[in-house]
């Protein structure tokens, strides 16, 4: 499908969760074996259109995430390609054993679309925040873990996943009126990081919503004479090792994610560079190891220190 200025902006306004509902309308054209299973999340995912247009390709399993992934495994075994969806936190932590056994151990190519990851629905409290989903899913063998930067990349990642046979977790972060990183169509390949900006002093590897904030942080830093490279690591697993290697050559390597500092992108990069003979220091920026009180999205981003200004400030402090 064609991505143009108008649908890119429409997706950004809808937010990544409801962009899913729009892109899903393309799935039957890509592969008739694709089915979508929702755990009582039809409307948050904007799937009403899919449900009405393709009722035979759609199941709602109710508020039952373990059964969601289990049923998907049964369908996958018989040759179908299930996309399953629920809020990011419930679609990962609530059914982790099902993910491990069905998607890891048995390697069924189920795609989990985790809605409103990170702080997106943090107004509902820590129960609805998803800070561990990258850590959990990437610990499972066979899994592919995608974390698109904006709604354009959400579209690209979903379309790529629809054509891919591997078990995949697609982490959709950010809220409505999601800032746009990709203003026009571009080449997206699972496992291949995208350098958005070159720079020589600091290399930022960011994922999800933090790609946009990192670009903004880079601008702030450049005003102070610091040259900053920014990489969109949309695929956490398999990690683009070449991209990490190149970033490790700068004076300071920074990872930024709207996820716990334990087990996410920062950890994945740290594991990769651990044995490098020559490497820069590595600053891991993410959500520290604690819970925050509920609040509106932009408030929470500041509470956990992930606004562009705060990211820039933290980088300056260790530079």
């Amino acid at each position, binding site marked *: 499908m064609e991505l143009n200025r108008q649908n890119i902006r429409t997706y950004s*306004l*809808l937010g990544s969760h409801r962009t899913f509902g729009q892109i899903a309308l393309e799935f039957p054209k890509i592969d008739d074996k694709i089915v979508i299973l929702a755990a009582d999340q039809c409307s948050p995912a904007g799937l009403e259109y899919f449900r009405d247009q393709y009722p035979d390709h759609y199941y709602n399993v109710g508020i039952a995430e373990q059964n969601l992934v289990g049923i998907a495994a049964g369908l996958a075994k018989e040759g179908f390609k299930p996309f399953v969806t629920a809020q990011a936190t419930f679609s990962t932590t609530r059914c982790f054993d099902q993910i491990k056994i069905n998607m890891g151990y048995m390697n069924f190519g189920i795609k989990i679309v985790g809605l409103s990851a990170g702080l997106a629905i943090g107004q509902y409290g820590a129960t609805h925040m998803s800070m561990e989903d990258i850590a959990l899913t990437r610990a499972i063998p066979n899994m592919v873990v995608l974390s698109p930067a904006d709604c354009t990349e959400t579209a690209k990642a979903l379309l790529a996943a629809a054509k891919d046979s591997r078990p995949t977790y697609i982490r959709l972060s950010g809220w409505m009126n999601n800032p746009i990183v990709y203003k026009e169509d571009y080449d997206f390949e699972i496992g291949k990081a995208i350098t958005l900006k070159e720079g020589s002093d600091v290399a930022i590897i960011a994922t999800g919503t933090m790609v946009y904030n990192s670009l903004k942080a880079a601008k702030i830093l450049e005003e102070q004479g610091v040259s900053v490279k920014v990489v969109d690591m949309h695929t956490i697993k398999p990690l683009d090792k070449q991209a990490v290697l190149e970033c490790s050559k700068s004076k300071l390597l920074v990872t930024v994610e709207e996820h716990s500092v334990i087990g996410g992108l920062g950890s994945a990069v740290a594991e990769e560079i651990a044995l490098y003979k020559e490497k820069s220091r590595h600053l891991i920026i993410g959500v520290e190891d604690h819970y925050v009180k509920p609040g509106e999205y932009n408030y929470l981003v500041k509470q956990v220190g992930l606004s562009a200004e705060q990211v820039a400030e933290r980088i300056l402090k260790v530079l």
Partner: protein
Amino acid sequence: MSNLEKYTNAFVTCFEVDEETAKRLKYQDISAWDSVGHMGLIAALEEAFDIMMETDDIIDLSSFEKGKEILSKYGIEF
């Protein structure tokens, strides 16, 4: 094309209605102007007038008439 023509045209194209219907439209009057159609309209208006709308304005734009009022905040005159 005048601003009013551009504005009306966005409604006509997004919701596939004639001009007369467009001018009387309110949010959710027709199935095409649902929550997704709304965002499509906003994107079309932003593109047509080369503006970026605030979240509150996006939510407030609940009818053809109200929209004109909101766009005037962005210096667009009808």
